[in-house]
């Protein structure tokens, strides 16, 4: 059913694998572009401290091709991938009628959302 099963036989695992594959390529590409811009404008890591995360200016930074914008988008993409993976698994288990696995996935998602909430409250 799962581990050790032939390639492609678990549709939930396959959906999660596709998401992770595409998500990793997207996040690393964005980070890579940000690093190129970082080098192009002559900023020096550890000497020049990058700006803290400010969601309201990220879009403007990306449009203006400022390195921090692309770096933050890529890093946030990276950070969000595991949560997206759990969400896709939850939907897949629910659709296939695997209620116990869906309940576990919902539990993991709750813990991740709790971590997000605690992060916002204690920042």
């Amino acid at each position: 059913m799962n581990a050790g099963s032939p390639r492609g036989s678990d549709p939930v695992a396959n959906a999660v694998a596709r998401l992770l594959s595409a998500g990793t390529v997207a996040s690393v590409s964005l980070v890579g572009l940000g690093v190129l811009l970082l080098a192009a404008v002559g900023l020096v890591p550890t000497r020049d401290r990058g700006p803290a995360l400010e969601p309201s200016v990220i879009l403007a930074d990306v449009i203006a091709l400022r390195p921090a914008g692309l770096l933050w988008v890529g890093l946030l993409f990276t950070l969000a991938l595991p949560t997206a993976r759990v969400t896709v698994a939850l939907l897949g288990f629910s659709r296939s009628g695997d209620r116990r696995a869906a309940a576990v996935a919902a539990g993991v998602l709750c813990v991740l959302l709790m971590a997000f909430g605690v992060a916002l409250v204690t920042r």
Partner: protein
Amino acid sequence: MPLTLLLIAGGVGTGVFGALLGLGGGILIVPLLTLGFGLPFRDAVAVSLLAVITTSSASAAIYLARGAANLRLGMTLELLTALGALFGGLLAFALDERLLAGLFAILLAYVAVSMARRREGRPPGSAVPSGEPPIDGPRPGGYVATLGGAGYVVRRLPLGLALSAFAGVQSALLGVGGGIVKVPAMHLVMGVPLRVATATSNMTIGVTASASAMLYLARGAVDPYVAGPVVLGVFIGATIASRLSHRVPLPLVRWLFVGVLTLVAFQMMARALQVSISR
């Protein structure tokens, strides 16, 4: 530019080492950034957690597509690892950085000793061969029975969950993936074959690291100018290693790694004790 390249190169090196030896990059990223680039310990942990997520996502995609990772078992363990990581992430900001450095030095020494005693095909910390699971006994029923895979059943789930919670705390405190605890826990305690345990651990460390990375991010510990090059480098290194692994003499790499870990453990302990070591 040279510093950006140095960070990328450092990421590549840690990515190659980590992927070749199945330990993830975190075990070397934190010392690299603290001892090599002078970053505060918590900032280094934050960057390391992001790198851990990247390598976990990339490798999990492959392991899941091949049917090597056990998604249901991994998600069950993630319930407790993520909770542990949340607790560890909060604890990390309450503890003195020197204490964290001391804990990291102990972890490095433990991994170095485990690697030195390890035979090919055994996980770090493992004391048994990597073939069949070492546990025997009555077959479990209920939900646990659905967690097994081809040729094995999952046993001692409560103990496995407890060890997973510990792995989560350790990951959040020290910026490592936690595979050093999870792989032996799954293989030796729960009776999961080593290959499945390694693949499943690689998949779960992304969620573990993500839970605590949110806390570090919210507290301003992530410097994007450092995190970007390191994440990029680790991804490149891990990708190279996955293609080179069958050509590289692993015993040589392992002993080199043991030497590096031992040296770094001493330097990290010296930092914890605030002792100056001349280079």
